[in-house]
């Protein structure tokens, strides 16, 4: 893209635009104000003919900035997809004619709206560059897999089958993880009637036979530096020997830790040898290997066994797990079958509150258990009394009475504790962060951090492991995107991500392997991961202007930015999700993307024509999240819901990217109201960039001073949480702002 910038502006007259607006005037605006070198009109711009017209100007006239004045940037994307140019959409259909009444008295303000959008698109064009990948990393197809249980092994085997070499790092001396400790597993195939072999030995054999897979046993990752496409991992053996290897992406399958049953004294665990956990029963079953299972205390063959479900789970009690581990109901049925299949006379009772055996397989397995004579009692166990035989005290919820039963053996269905390393510091604000640094030797948070060993040991500014979600699992926050951790290129799978059984963990590992492969490929091309998949723009900063304030490195939701010795940010392109939160954080405005910068938006709002105060035509700037608020506005338009002709909407990548300078500049240039529309924040946040909306709200708190210094009313700047479904709400909010301005009056800052 060497050579001159040349803007071509193309005004569509289809879909009613030509009837409702003066297209000639729009063309004049584009050439006169927008400095478009070429401007053409077309009756039907998205037609083959219209598109060819534009392509011809690109090919033969040197147009390299294309301004489409037609429909929304979300419409007709297949038609308006030109290579090697920047593309800018003036939204005249959804943004103007569909939200304005078709009447003569409204024509003037409607036309003004359209003219402004043309000016804005041209201004954006002027300050945009065609994004090109940084070349920071090439394609590296090696996948690092942390954890050698069934999940890790599955990830390795499946990625290898697709042609990707894998390295497994396992801290134990053998592969197999938790499943290797099981006698049998829950069935995974019809008719789902009996426990089945775990298949761990076959998996291990397959790993050993695969020359594409390298295994490091007794080893840990002691440092992981770099980014997707160029991770450098130190793999250290117990012996102390360390090798460093390069990887494209990482699967973290670090599994779970069994819940410590010693925290359940009410169930006589630790006091009575015949009270065991599910995992301990597996060892007994393994030892019996098909013969009668003997109990630990005296080796007596077990003739009666009680399973206590949800032991220390689904409970808010101190030291208990709040979550349900999902697999324990099926696991207890399986274990009861160990007894029943060997000797149908053994009494097996499962005490549960909700029996959770979902899906086709789960319900069949439950039924099979019933057929084999397992007794299911809906009850809450209050205590296990220590004695020669443990006695289980419980409330039978069906008979609604307290009862007790003596058994040879009691099995506690304790749950899964994620093995997810350290909770991150991503949530810390600058101030808190500095405080913590000052009080390094004291403070609770510090102590907790020391206790938990890191799994990955990431050399990231924002912590050594993948940030945790609820209950300590390193999960994604998103229902539609289960693999989107807050660390690009690192995909968690199995019980470290959420509680699950072996089969699900293996499925999960395969999905994580897919994501790892995807990221290894795309990082190599400089392409962004979800949700801006394929985006080639990435942030750079002007070092001369940087004050080393560290806001960008702290606020990046994805831990993409490190710091050098002098405190300057070090960007890692392929960790970056391109949200622009760093840009919004930067007080000196030195951070920008090729196609999204302080200028591409700042110049748009400056391009808006501000009528003089006595014209009584206020201007309202709406900065709308491109994924939720902007589509909601488009859909409001589709439904012909009207809003004020004074609004000027600019889509932003994320509210977190909003630079305070846009706010002050627009106030100074005479905007009367400013509306920021982002996603709902809080625990159930919907921001796909984690915290953009919350961050913006915080930052806007500081706008108060600016408003005060300009003697402007605080109502002029407002932040809203908008979901994509708020189709009726968004036009109403804009109209409310227009009413507010009517009340408080025009801004005096018109020039």
């Amino acid at each position, binding site marked *: 893209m060497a050579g001159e910038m040349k803007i071509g502006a193309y005004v569509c007259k*289809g*879909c009613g635009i030509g009837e409702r607006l003066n297209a000639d005037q729009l063309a004049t605006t584009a050439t006169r104000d927008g400095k478009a070198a070429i401007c053409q009109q077309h009756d*039907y711009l*998205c*037609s083959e003919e219209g598109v060819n017209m534009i392509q011809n100007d690109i090919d033969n006239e040197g147009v390299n900035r294309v301004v489409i004045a037609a*429909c929304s940037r*979300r419409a007709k*994307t*297949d038609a308006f997809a030109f290579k090697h140019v920047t593309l800018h959409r003036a939204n005249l259909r959804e943004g103007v004619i569909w939200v304005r009444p078709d009447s003569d008295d409204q024509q003037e303000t409607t036309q003004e709206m359209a003219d402004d959008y043309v000016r804005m698109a041209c201004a954006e064009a002027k300050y945009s560059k065609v994004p090109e990948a940084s070349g920071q990393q090439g394609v590296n197809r090696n996948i690092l897999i942390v954890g050698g249980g069934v999940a890790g092994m599955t990830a390795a085997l*499946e990625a290898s*089958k697709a042609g990707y070499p894998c390295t497994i790092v396992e801290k134990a001396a053998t592969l197999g993880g938790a499943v290797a400790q099981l006698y049998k597993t829950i069935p995974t*195939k*019809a008719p789902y009637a009996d426990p089945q072999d775990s298949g761990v030995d076959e998996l291990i054999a397959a790993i050993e036979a695969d020359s594409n897979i390298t295994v490091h046993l007794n080893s840990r990752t002691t440092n992981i530096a770099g980014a997707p496409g160029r991770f450098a991992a130190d793999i250290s053996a117990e012996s102390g020997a360390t090798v460093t290897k390069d990887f494209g992406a990482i699967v973290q399958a670090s599994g779970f830790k069994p819940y410590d049953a010693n925290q359940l004294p009410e169930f006589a665990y630790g006091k009575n040898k015949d009270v065991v956990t599910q995992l301990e029963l597996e060892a007994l079953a393994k030892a019996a290997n098909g013969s009668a299972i003997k109990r630990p205390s005296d080796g007596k063959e077990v003739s009666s066994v009680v399973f206590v479900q949800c032991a220390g789970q689904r409970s808010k009690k101190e030291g208990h797990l709040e*979550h*349900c*581990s*999902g697999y324990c109901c099926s696991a207890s049925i399986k274990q009861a079958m160990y007894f029943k299949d060997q000797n149908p006379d053994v009494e097996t009772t499962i005490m549960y509150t*909700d*029996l*959770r055996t*979902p*899906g*086709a397989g789960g*319900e*069949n397995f439950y039924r099979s258990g019933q057929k084999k004579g397992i007794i299911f009692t*809906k009850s809450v166990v209050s205590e296990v009394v220590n004695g020669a035989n443990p006695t289980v005290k419980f409330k039978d919820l069906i008979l*609604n009475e307290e009862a007790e039963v003596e058994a040879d053996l009691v099995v506690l269905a304790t749950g899964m504790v994620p093995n997810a390393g350290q909770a991150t510091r991503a949530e810390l604000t600058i101030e808190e962060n500095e405080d913590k640094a000052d009080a390094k030797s004291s403070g609770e948070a510090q102590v907790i951090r020391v206790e938990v060993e890191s799994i990955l040991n990431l050399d990231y500014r924002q912590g050594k492991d993948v940030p945790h979600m*609820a*209950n300590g*699992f390193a*999960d994604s926050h998103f*229902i*539609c*995107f*289960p*693999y989107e951790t807050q660390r690009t290129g690192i995909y968690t799978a199995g019980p470290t991500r959420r509680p699950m059984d072996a089969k699900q963990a293996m*499925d*999960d590992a395969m*999905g994580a392997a*897919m*994501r790892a*492969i*995807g990221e290894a*490929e*795309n990082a190599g091309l400089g392409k962004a991961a*979800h*949700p801006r*998949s*394929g985006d080639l723009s990435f942030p750079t900063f002007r070092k001369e202007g940087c004050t080393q304030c560290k806001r960008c490195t702290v606020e990046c939701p994805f831990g993409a930015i490190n710091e050098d010795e002098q405190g300057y940010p070090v960007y890692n392109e392929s960790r970056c999700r391109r949200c622009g939160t760093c840009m919004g954080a930067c007080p000196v405005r030195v951070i920008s993307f090729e196609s999204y910068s302080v200028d591409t938006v700042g110049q748009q709002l400056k391009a808006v024509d501000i009528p003089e105060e006595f014209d009584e035509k206020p201007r309202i700037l709406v900065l709308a999240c491109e994924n939720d608020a902007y*589509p909601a506005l488009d*859909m409001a338009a*589709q*439904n012909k819901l009207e809003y004020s002709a004074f609004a000027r909407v600019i889509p932003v990548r994320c509210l977190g990217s909003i630079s305070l300078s846009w706010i002050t500049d627009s106030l100074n240039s005479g905007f009367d109201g400013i509306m920021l529309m982002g996603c*709902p924040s809080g625990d*159930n946040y*919907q921001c796909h960039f984690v915290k953009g909306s919350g961050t913006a709200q915080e930052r806007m708190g500081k706008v108060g001073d600016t408003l005060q210094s300009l003697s402007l009313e605080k109502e002029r700047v407002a932040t809203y949480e908008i*979901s*994509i*479904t708020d*189709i009726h709400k968004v036009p109403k909010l804009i109209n409310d702002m227009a009413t507010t301005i009517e009340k408080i009056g025009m801004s005096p800052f018109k020039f």
Partner: protein
Amino acid sequence: MSDIVATNQTILVVGGGISGMTAAIEAAEVGKQVIVIEKRPFIGGRVSQLYKYFPKLCFPTCGLEINQRRINANKNITVVTMAEVTGLVGEAGNYTASVKISPRYVNSNCTACGACGDAVESEFDNEFNYNMDKRKGAYLPYNLAQPQRYVIDPQMIGTDDAQKAKDACKFNAVDLDMQEETIELKAGAVIYATGWRPYDANKIQPYGYDRIKNVITSVEFERMMDPFGPTGGKLVRPSDGAEAKKVAFIQCAGSRDRNYLKHCSRICCMASLKQSTYVSEKYGDDAEVSIYYIDIRAIDRFDDFYQKVQDDKNVTFIKSKVASIVENKANGNPTLHGVDTEGYNRYANEHDLVVLAVGMEPSVDKDTFPIEIKVNDEGFIEHDEANGGVFAAGCSSDALDVNRAVQHATAAALRAIQVVNRVAKAEG
């Protein structure tokens, strides 16, 4: 449609719901050629008809918007709507699929300007809202429909209205002569992401869905919450439009039952817990929700949500399989009869509205797969070597929630990639 290029390195994804979209995106974003075959006129599947997701109570269209943008931006994905796979022959690395494409009567010239919709009068049952209301004969299926292109109902063809639609279009997008066609496509691997359908509540005789107006299904209830849905976002009774404040949810309606669906559909407990919040959202403290259940299966991390709903004093849990529902003819209230098994008390409880938490049935009937494939008793596709290069994704494999369906579909993409990479290697 004959310009679709497909080879034995192409991945064919059957079904464009959340699972099919996910599998397609994952494969396409690593450079694979993908063709998505979708039966309906738009992609997005069942999630497009959901108001909110559990447990976050966020909106499914948010994720759809992202996925649709990714699909639109990716040249490796071809989406064919109103299409069904009617035949499939071959083996891993070399399949040929017959795809029947029904006429949309609107071609790609369409700009979704809406002129045809404005021009016509005729109305037909709106399948998007489970036929609870009507839509026009020229229509965009819903606000976020992708492709953003109108559809003309075949029932309108041959009428004056059809001609009016054609005349209203300035872009020559309405083609009333469009014919059904069948095309053949090559593929190396096939992903069945055909999803689920709600179990037919008419079959559950004791619950009177076919007789009692104020007995509806969970999927219908979901549509009522949408401001663009059949009731404009109001929770009201179908019989008289009165506010439905005293609402009963019947869990396992036709599920975990040998007479109907043998399996547990995993999602229904969470769906009802979620829907209980809808009643509160609309009526605050006037909401009076009863959930009749066998086991509340709020599995793994979802249990938090169950605990939250349990804390809501307007929600009561009754452990009982409801025996029957009788309509109170005087006021239209359904009366539930059964035994509360906690303490064994008989009850006869009257409610404004009853919601049947119906289960998930695989969309494709067991014996109608176009190729031999391993399917379990419940009709779900089992993972099996014998299936060759045909893989299930999402709810075609089991009753799954969205999160797990997406997880499963991501894995399915890798399975398909393994096959086409093998083909690519063999072909050099």
